[in-house]
């Protein structure tokens, strides 16, 4: 495990003495969990729920990959296949990716990182979890009852006039969970504005908090538009009010405008927190100050703002006007600038660093590579000419899975391992962590790289059958999905094992800066015994020369 941070005293204190009171062992009843207003316990409630949703969505994906093993569909009918990919999309987007990092790692870490006792509105925080659960249960119930076949995008007039299935119940579930997003965003913003510890100026905040702030802005400004859109869709389906249906005087493309006005910024809801996690991990495991701090944080903000200007790139072949397509194409290219700046800054941080390949770092480095691949292939889709050919092919599927799974899910696992000692007070088994991280990277690439080629060759997405010449690449992809599935199940076991038998974690196992490492692991309910005072910039690691000197003096082989 970490050998640089543990002083002998700390090690002794953590293994021999019985652990002091903390947020986990203070109260033990079920009610103390379900009615808690402690941000740390609410984060764990969210952890449990999104893990369930992740495996539901994953099961749907596994069935799809199984079906695509043979050209004529191995196990399910085309109709069932449609329902499977809809289920996969709805569950993964709204009940895993959109909440994932903010409500778990963010919920847990924000007060600890700014030196506060809790979030600004602890009761609203609990209410958010209940709203999320109510929405999630309604949607998944409807999906299990038979679901719907529109895809997660609910395009009209398919969804309003032709779709058979539970369009309205699923939309209602998403609508309700949207209020959870709004409340969470509001809570985070107010907390970051009002509850920072003395001396914690904006530029002394860790990058993770900046990215969560930017995410919160999107939560608050974009989610209402989705709520209105789904409401209009429900009105049209139930009362036949003509909004999107052309036979009733509506405009079907209007639905796509409104839907993507939410859903493109939602892509950044999903990736910005991941970028924040990676910006925390890389400085720690390369013992370097983050390169270009101000650029990194302002890029988060500008990504959040620009993300609202680009939604039209989803509709280049939907019959929108050429003028708007050209402008949306140009604006889409703009978003790549702050994203690229971030990538260069992470690489700049690594430069001349003392890099350690602990599991969180392997996930973070995987994120940087896979996010770059996903981002660069996005440029092909933002270009009008190539998008006409690539639209609705597996190229698009591969592109956004590189961002969402290769990027975001890697960052989630990286952050989970990085903060695991703080959250649970136990170390995870390092060797297993590294093996799982490497397997996720390998399995992911084997699953999704063939899909770039398939898309380039013209295989359309959302079909349960395909011409036989595409079989080799599809089998490769399904083989990768098997490895990926095993790799995703592994942390469930070894992290679960570590809860009971893992080595006790000291307060700061990684030797990291940041307020969350200055309190005990796991923290007490009120987080800090006294309000911390911040006196320096974040990531204030000693310069490389000092580490070098220290190692030479201590006789360590460099």
């Amino acid at each position: 495990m970490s050998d640089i941070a543990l002083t002998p005293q700390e090690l002794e204190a953590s293994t021999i003495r019985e652990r002091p009171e903390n947020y986990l062992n203070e109260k033990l009843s079920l009610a103390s969990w379900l009615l808690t207003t402690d941000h740390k316990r609410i984060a764990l409630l969210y952890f449990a729920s999104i893990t369930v949703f992740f495996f539901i969505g994953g099961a749907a994906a596994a069935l799809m990959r199984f079906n695509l093993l043979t050209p004529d569909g191995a196990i399910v009918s085309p109709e069932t296949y449609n329902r499977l990919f809809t289920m996969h999309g709805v569950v993964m987007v709204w009940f895993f990716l959109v909440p994932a990092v903010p409500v778990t790692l963010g919920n847990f870490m924000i007060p600890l990182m700014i030196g506060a006792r809790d979030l600004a509105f602890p009761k609203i925080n609990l209410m958010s979890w209940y709203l999320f659960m109510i929405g999630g249960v309604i949607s998944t119930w409807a999906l299990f009852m038979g679901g719907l076949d529109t895809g997660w995008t609910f395009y009209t007039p398919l969804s309003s006039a032709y779709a058979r299935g539970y369009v309205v119940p699923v939309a209602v579930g998403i609508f309700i969970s949207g209020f959870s997003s709004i409340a969470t965003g509001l809570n985070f913003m107010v907390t970051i504005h009002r509850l920072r510890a003395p001396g914690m100026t904006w530029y002394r905040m860790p990058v993770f908090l900046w990215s969560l702030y930017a995410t919160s802005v999107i939560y608050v400004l974009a989610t209402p538009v989705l709520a209105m859109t789904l409401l209009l869709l429900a009105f049209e389906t139930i009362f036949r009010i003509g909004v999107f249906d052309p036979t009733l005087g509506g405009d079907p493309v209007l639905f796509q405008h409104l839907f993507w006005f939410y859903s493109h910024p939602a892509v950044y809801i999903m990736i910005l927190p991941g970028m924040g996690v990676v910006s925390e991990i890389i400085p720690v495991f390369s013992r370097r100050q983050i390169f270009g701090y101000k650029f990194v944080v302002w890029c988060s903000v500008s990504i959040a703002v620009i993300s609202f200007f680009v939604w039209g790139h989803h509709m280049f072949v939907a019959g929108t006007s050429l003028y708007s397509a050209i402008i949306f194409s140009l604006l889409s290219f703009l978003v790549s600038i702050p994203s690229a700046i971030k990538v260069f800054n992470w690489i700049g941080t690594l430069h001349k660093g003392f890099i350690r390949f602990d599991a969180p770092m392997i996930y973070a480095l995987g994120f940087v590579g896979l996010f770059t691949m996903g981002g660069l292939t996005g440029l092909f889709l933002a270009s009008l000419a190539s998008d006409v050919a690539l639209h609705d092919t597996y190229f698009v599927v591969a592109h956004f899975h590189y961002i969402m799974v290769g990027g975001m899910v890697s960052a989630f696992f990286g952050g989970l391992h990085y903060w695991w000692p703080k959250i649970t007070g136990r170390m995870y088994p390092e060797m297993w962590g590294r093996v799982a991280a490497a397997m996720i990277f390998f399995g992911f690439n084997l699953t999704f790289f063939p899909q770039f080629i398939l898309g380039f060759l013209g295989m359309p997405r959302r079909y349960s059958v395909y011409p036989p010449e595409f079989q080799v690449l599809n089998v490769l992809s399904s083989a990768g999905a098997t490895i990926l599935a095993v790799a995703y199940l592994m942390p469930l076991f070894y992290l679960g094992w570590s809860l009971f038998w893992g080595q006790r974690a000291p307060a700061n196992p990684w030797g990291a800066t940041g307020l969350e490492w200055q309190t005990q692991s796991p923290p007490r309910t009120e987080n800090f015994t006294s309000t911390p005072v911040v006196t320096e910039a974040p990531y204030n690691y000693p310069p490389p020369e000092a580490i070098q000197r220290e190692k030479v003096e201590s006789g360590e082989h460099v």
Partner: protein
Amino acid sequence: MRQVVRPLLPVWLGLLALFAVELGTAFLPLGHAFAGLILLPAAAMVGLVGFGFMRLGRYGAIARCFALAAVFWLLVLLGLGSMDPFTRTEYPVRVTTYP
């Protein structure tokens, strides 16, 4: 809790009343020239939200920044969004003519 909720109640009732007015105007046989009238209750709603709910007069610069941001985002949605229907060549938006 009560001190927070009570002053908001009339604001909410006011918003509902304005909403009823909006719905009502949809059934009035107003000519094309009066179509803009429908914006009046909407403007009143914005005022109510801004000064009744957000209390922009009372709270400082940050609250006003957020209120402005909301207006800005609405402009983005309507501005960038209307670019397509008004310049579309396939299936252009029909301009509704009022009787």
